[in-house]
Each structure stands twice: as C-alpha cells, then as structure tokens.
C-alpha cells in the first residue's frame, strides 16, 4: 500500500535536532517559527483561530524534540503550503480584515503620517462588494510553472524591472512582518505607481488584482501573510470566512479578477448569470 503523506503533519525529525542559539525566551527564532507552524507538542501553547495555530513559546520544562530546521535558503514545504482561504458565503463584507491590515501596515511603514488617521488604503486585503456578493481581494501567491512558463517565480516578481518584489527566505526578516518564505516589496527599489505598474498590470492581466499602492509614497504593496501570522485572520469575526490553512501550494488556482469572481459567486450562490 502506498504511504499516504499528509501535508498538514509536521515533518518528522530524522536526526538529532540541530543546536541553535537560543533567544531570551529559551527558544530560538527558527525553532519558534517552525514550531509555531508545526504545532509540535511541548514546544507550543496552541491558541487556535480558525484553523490557524498561533505559536507561543512554552517554558522548556522537559526537553522537547524540535522539528527539523530546513537547510539555509530552503523554503519549508510545510509553511509554504499554507495559504489564505476565504469562504464568500460566510464573509459578510464588514471590512474588519481590511481595517486590521491597513492599521498594521500604516503604523509599521508610516507611523508619523498615520498617527491620527484611519485609512483602508494601506490594506493588502480588501473586500469588494458587488451588491449581493462580497469578494475578498488579496494576493493569492500564484506561481509560474517552470515546464510551461519558463520560471517558477511569482508573476509580479518576474516582471518587476527593479527586482523589488522579493521572497524573504524563511527565518529571515523582522519578526511579525515577514519571513517564512513570503512576499515583500523592497520599497527602496520599487519605482512607485507613477512610474511603473507592471506588477499590478500582469496580475490583473492574467491572475487577479492582488497588488495595490499606498497613498503616501505610492509604492507597491502586497500581502506578506504577516510572516505567517496574518492579522486579517485574527481580526475576522465570522467563523470560517477567512482562514489560514494548509492548502494548495500554487495560489493561481484561487486567483480571479474581483469582478470575474463576483460573477462566479452569483452563479454559485444565486444561480444567476450576471455581467459585472
């Protein structure tokens, strides 16, 4: 019988855990990251929101086996397999995800300018209402396929003339904002919407509409999945509407134009054919 491998299981340790430098809390940054995703017993006190496991380092009372740390530069298959999934039947279009996202990144990137302002324009996730359906518009993490398209990059990454859209290798980057093999925009390199919109254009041309531009320095913004702990998922009030789950690796099969998606939802929910 063929061995069935579940993607949502933690990778089994095959060798002795690598000794790594430990942080103040007694758990290394890497262990923390891997542990938080894998939900290894003893290492993580699990708070569960939706299907998302939120890791908190526990006091290492007993020696717990740590998950295997991936080799340098290698993206953990396990974490990379996570994706944002939304259920348009459960979503009510209340915009709380967008407010949470926008607030987080406005404060991170422009703390002074936004000290007194609440705006949705910094949100990487943005629900759009098409009357009776709501479409959650967010980057789906589409990948090109090497065998067909000559590359395995993200399409926005592939067309960026400045290499400003980068994939931050797992374990690197500032805690809570990026890492885990997720997308980030290098704002020093990005030319801004007034000079270049190739990333947004190719996204809308062939995939969805996951790029947006912030209103202050007009640079590209794209969902970084908050480095593996998405703020929007934590903020969402509707059970099951927005979840962070081990799902298909290539997001291109989730991705649709907002208006195309709305048409699909009209078909699905109301049995109506509409042109939007």
């Amino acid at each position, binding site marked *: 019988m063929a061995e069935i491998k579940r993607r949502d299981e933690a990778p089994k340790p095959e060798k002795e855990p690598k000794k790594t430098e430990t942080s103040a809390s007694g758990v290394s940054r890497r262990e923390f990251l891997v542990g938080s995703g894998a939900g290894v017993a003893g290492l993580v006190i699990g708070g569960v929101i939706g299907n998302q496991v939120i890791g908190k380092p526990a006091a290492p009372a007993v020696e717990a086996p740590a998950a295997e740390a991936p080799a340098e530069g290698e993206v953990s298959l396990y974490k990379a397999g996570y994706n944002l999934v939304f259920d348009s039947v459960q979503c*009510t279009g209340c915009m709380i995800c967008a407010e949470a996202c926008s607030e987080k990144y406005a404060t991170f990137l422009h703390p002074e300018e936004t000290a*007194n302002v*609440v705006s949705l324009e910094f949100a990487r996730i943005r629900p*759009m209402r098409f009357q009776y359906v709501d479409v959650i518009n967010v980057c789906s993490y589409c990948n*090109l396929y090497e065998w067909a*398209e000559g590359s395995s990059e993200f399409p926005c990454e592939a067309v960026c003339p400045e290499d400003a859209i980068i994939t931050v290798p797992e374990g690197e980057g500032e805690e809570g904002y990026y890492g885990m093999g997720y997308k980030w925009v290098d704002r020093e390199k990005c030319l801004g919407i007034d000079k270049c919109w190739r990333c947004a254009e190719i996204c809308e041309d062939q995939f969805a*509409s996951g790029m947006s531009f912030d*209103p202050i320095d007009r640079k590209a913004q794209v969902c970084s999945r908050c480095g593996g702990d998405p703020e929007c998922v934590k903020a969402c009030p509707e059970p099951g509407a927005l979840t962070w789950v081990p799902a298909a690796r290539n997001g291109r099969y989730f991705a649709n*134009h907002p208006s195309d998606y709305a048409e699909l939802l009209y078909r699905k929910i*109301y049995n109506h054919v509409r042109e939007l």
Partner: protein
Amino acid sequence: MADLFGITGKIARVDLTTETVTVIEPAEEIYRKYLGGSAMGAYFLFKEGIFDPKLDPLGPDNLLQFMIGPVTGAAPNARITLVTKSPYNIFCASTCGGHFGSELKYAGWDGIQVVGKASKPVYLAVMDDTIEIRDASHVWGKGVEEAELILKSEVLAELESREGMIRDADLNPEWAALRPPKRLGMHAKRLAHVMAIGPGGENQVWYSCVVTEGARAAGRWGAGAVMGSKNLKAVVVRGTKGHKLADKKTFLALVSGIQKSERGDYFWRSYGTAGIGANSAYVEDAFPIRNWQWCSWADPHVKAITGPFMDQTSFVRKVSCYGCNLHCLYPVEVTSSDPLMDGTMSDMPDWEAMGMVGGNLGYMEMDGVDPDKPFTGSVKDQAEHLAKLQYTTFIHDDNSLDFIEGGANIALLMELVQRGFIDSGDLDGIDLQWGDVHAVDELVKKICARDGIGDKLAQGTYETARYFAELKGKPEIMNYSMTAHHYGQPAHDVRSPADKNAMEYVTVNRACAHTGGGTAGFKTGDWAAAIAGQNVSAAQNSLVHCQFPAGHWAGSRIDLIKAATGWSDFSDEDLQLVGAREYALSRLFEIHIRQLKDPKAEWDRQVPPRWFNDPLPTGSQKGAVAYEGKPDVLFNEALPAYWKERGWTEDKGVPTLDTLKKLGIDDVAGTVASEHL
C-alpha cells in the same frame, strides 16, 4: 483653521442648474451644536430658507442633503442621513446603511448638498476632492441594481485606468508564447460605493427611496423623488483620504470593544429583524394583516414570517454594513412554483417588509380563508407565501420605492375593493384581491411608470384615499387610510399595549417614524424619559450610527465622540441637546411649511381613525384600542404635557423663544417661531 478631527469641516454644495460645485465650511461650533446627519440637515433647511411654504419640494430650489457625522468613517455601523423637504411637504431625515457613509468621510466630506435641476439625467462622481457632474442618460430608466453596478465600474475604471505597460519582452519567452499580455492596463478594482434611484424615483413617485448595495435604502419620506426631480440618478463615491481622529488609539480600542460586544449578540446575528418574527411578531398583536383589520392570526402556526423558517427556506448569505458584526441583511434567491417570482434575487424580508408587503397584503393566508380562521396549509404553502413577500420586496427595492408606504398604499386599495368602494374598473382593469401577487406586480409597475391610475396612486396612501373619497363621494373612505400625519404607518400598531404607544407616532419628528424612540417613557407617562429617548435617537441619526447596535454603543458613545473629535468636554447633556435642537427645528419646519394655524387639529390629530374606532378583533390583546380608547386624554392632556416638558407652548406645540435661546438656535429659528407663537 485649527486642525479638525472626526469631522473634515467641508460640505460640498452642488448646484445642478449652474453645474457648479462649491465648498461650505461650517464653523466647528456648528458641528458641536448639531454633530452632523439629521440635526445638521435640519439646521441647513433653516439656514437656506427651505422652510419657505411656497417652495416646491419637487422643484429646483429644494435642498437634498447627504449628511454624515463625526464618527461616520472609521466607526462601525456607519449610516448616512438624507435630509430634505419631503414631497409630502413634511420633514425628511431618512437614514441608510451600507458603506456609502464611511466612503464619503474617507473622501474628505461631511456631506453633499444638492440644489437646482440638471437639464438632462446626471450622476455625481465624488473622487476625494474632485466632484464631477456626469451624464447618466445611459442608466436612466434602469433599476437600482443594474445602475449601481454600471456606474461603479465606470468611475472605478477611470480612476484605476492606466495604459498597458507590460510588453512581451517583460515575460519569459515561454510564458509570452502561451499568454501574451493583453495590454489592458489596470482596470480590475471596484472600490466605489453608490447611492442610486430606480424608475420610481425618476418618475417622482412620492414615496420613492434612495438605494445602495441593492437592498439598503434611505427608505422613507421620499428622498428618491427629490433626487429624481433634480434629474440626479446617483452619487458615486470613492475616498482614499482616511478618517482623521483626535485620539486614534482610544478610538480603535472603543471600536474593537463595540465589535466584540456585537459578536455575542445572536439576536441580530441569527436572523436580523426577521428574528422579531420568531420572538414577538403577531404574538404582540401588533402586526399588519390586511390593512390592519387584524393584527394577529387566529392560528399562531403561521410561520412564514419567522426568522428560522426564512432561514430554512431561503437565506443564503449574510451581509454587513461597514465595520458591523451584526450582519442583519440576509440575501435570498426566491424559489417558487410561480415563474413570475422564481429565481428572483431579493433579501430577507426584514421586519417592515414582512409586515407591510406581507401580512398587510394578505399574502400569508390560504386563498379565501380569513385571518381569523385556522391555517390549513402545508409547509410548502408557507414557502410560497414567503416567496410572494420576497418578490414584492424586490420590486419595491429595485424600483426604489419605500415598501412601508407602498404596502400601506396597496393594502388600502385592497380593502377598498374588499368593501366594495372601488372595483377593477377604478384600477385600470386590475382585479386587486388579497394575496394576489400578480395584481400587486402590475399595480407597482403602473405606479412606477405613473401610468393611468398609477399617476394618482404615486402620491401615497393619504392622497390615494382622498382621491377615491372625492371620486366616489364617500368621505368614509378616509377611515381606511392607515396614515399618521399623512404618511403610512409602519409595521407596529399602537392599539396593542404590548408594542408602540400612540403618543410615539403623534410626537415623533419624522412623520410616523417607527424608530423615534422613547417607547417606555410614553407608556408610563414619564415625558422626560420619553423625550430623552427621542433625543438620543435623533442624536444617533446625527452621528450617524445605526440604531440596531445602540445597546453595544451605549457605554462608549460619548467617549467615541471625544476620541474622534477631541472635544474633551462633550457630555451626555450635549448629546441630548443635539436631539432637542433637531426636534425644535423640525417641529417649526412642519408648522411653517404647512402654515398651520391650529397645529393640533390640522396636524397632530391627523392619525388613523382605525386606532380608536376598530378594536383588535383577535389575538392576545383582543378588544384593545389605542390609548385605552381615550383620544381626548391623548391630545388634550398627554400631548400638552409632553410639549410643556419640551419647553414648547401647550396650545400649539411651538418651541418658545426662551427654549430656542436655551438651545442656542434662536438665531436660525427665532423669526419663524415668533410667527406661530
């Protein structure tokens, strides 16, 4: 000017005749006095001279205001209030949910005022500071759903639009060979919000409303007709500037507290107002059945109007307004064996719809069975009854008609047919029998188009009754007009002591509003409490936030205003004053535009005769009449006492100059008041 927080200090004034847009910048003092929304709207009705009795509500000089308040924007449960002189020649301050209010604040405005009349159909495109008057001939005549979607993509396409930049060479050769770029540029986002009218508003049906997101409406008092009279099809808003707050941290903490509290509120989170059906409905004996001839069925097993049954039958989603966790709107797809209705997209119905275009039109009984007989149908029959209700909701919404006044209007006609006062010959051949959805459908189409008899019926319930009373020479027809202050009574009766009190409809500042507040005070004769309730309700319409989560807001409302605006000394008393100002202004407005010499006889006593003449025939409150059958006590003791408590004269209910001075509005309303004292 000092930095403004919460408010933007700017109201756009659009003159459609001259095609100009100017900016009004009221002093911060004015905002503190009126906040925004309905109270601020009432202030402008005085300031701009809209109280002139000769001013035609459907003429170019009328002022239509889309007003929001200091917390509208980043706060949850945002609404917008439309204030104008109603086609019924009364005060109109009608609120509406959705995302439009927040988006308007994000665009940097505290309101939009429209005057004049465009020479051809137009719509307003508000993109932050830019306001354009654009041609709308391509959407004129379309229903609100279609018009909204077209205008939304039009405005967005232009905002987003950038020419194609990607070239084949930007792609890998293999990729370019498979899918060369279409070079359409950017075009996909749809972030604007729209308020629009349908054919009902275009043809100036008096009770037409303004609709957003397909099913949310500034429903009452005919703001849609005023919009139609100005040839204004819609307003589209896209705002990117955000909401400026004095103390963002505190504000967001309060918002999050309100939202968390809402999450535990499973009354709203289960069925919205359809949940009232399950809880009280006709058990309180105050539900409109066949033009209020009955207020409960003999058989409590009529369940098509209950939340659980609607959910089991048809709810497919739940929809929130901005930042709200109560999601009280449930879209449905109508399923019926009748092809007229089958497949229609509609919503719920909500409480008012299930009453006014449900029970009131005789939809919920089996053919030929009166409401005082046992219900003999099956669950499938109940599902068909629900379908009729949902379909009638849809035709009102899509044509932008108020289904409360619309339901009252059609139910009146049905009762006149039932009693033999009129027949199909009077209705252009339509045989209008209780429960006949096809006849209702035909009639609503005629009313929207103002075709034939529809032209007479388009002026609402009271005028319909008057028309037939004169035509037939039978003044008793007026007894069947279920209108207070000439406007249709919503789906809460006052005969049953379990629901609303008659004083509530008599005193509320917007004709026959069911959201005026103060019920408990009116029931116990505690006028101060009743007035406080009314003032809070008026202040909510000025802030502007929804009344459904009022309980969740109650402890944080003042702190939220402080955190938004930085008015550190703003108190509950100030909030009460806002409501008191709105009540004084709207009372004077109505007395003056109608030039009432004896307001009590000409206005306050204009309530449905049925309240006192027809005791409830069935149900838990069988035999009850309004105000214990003592209209003289109501109008000669209670009403003067209420007026006195408000600081108005006891004979006419006119705010005294002293009261106006205390409220700080003698400068705007003093002259008008002295004419009527």
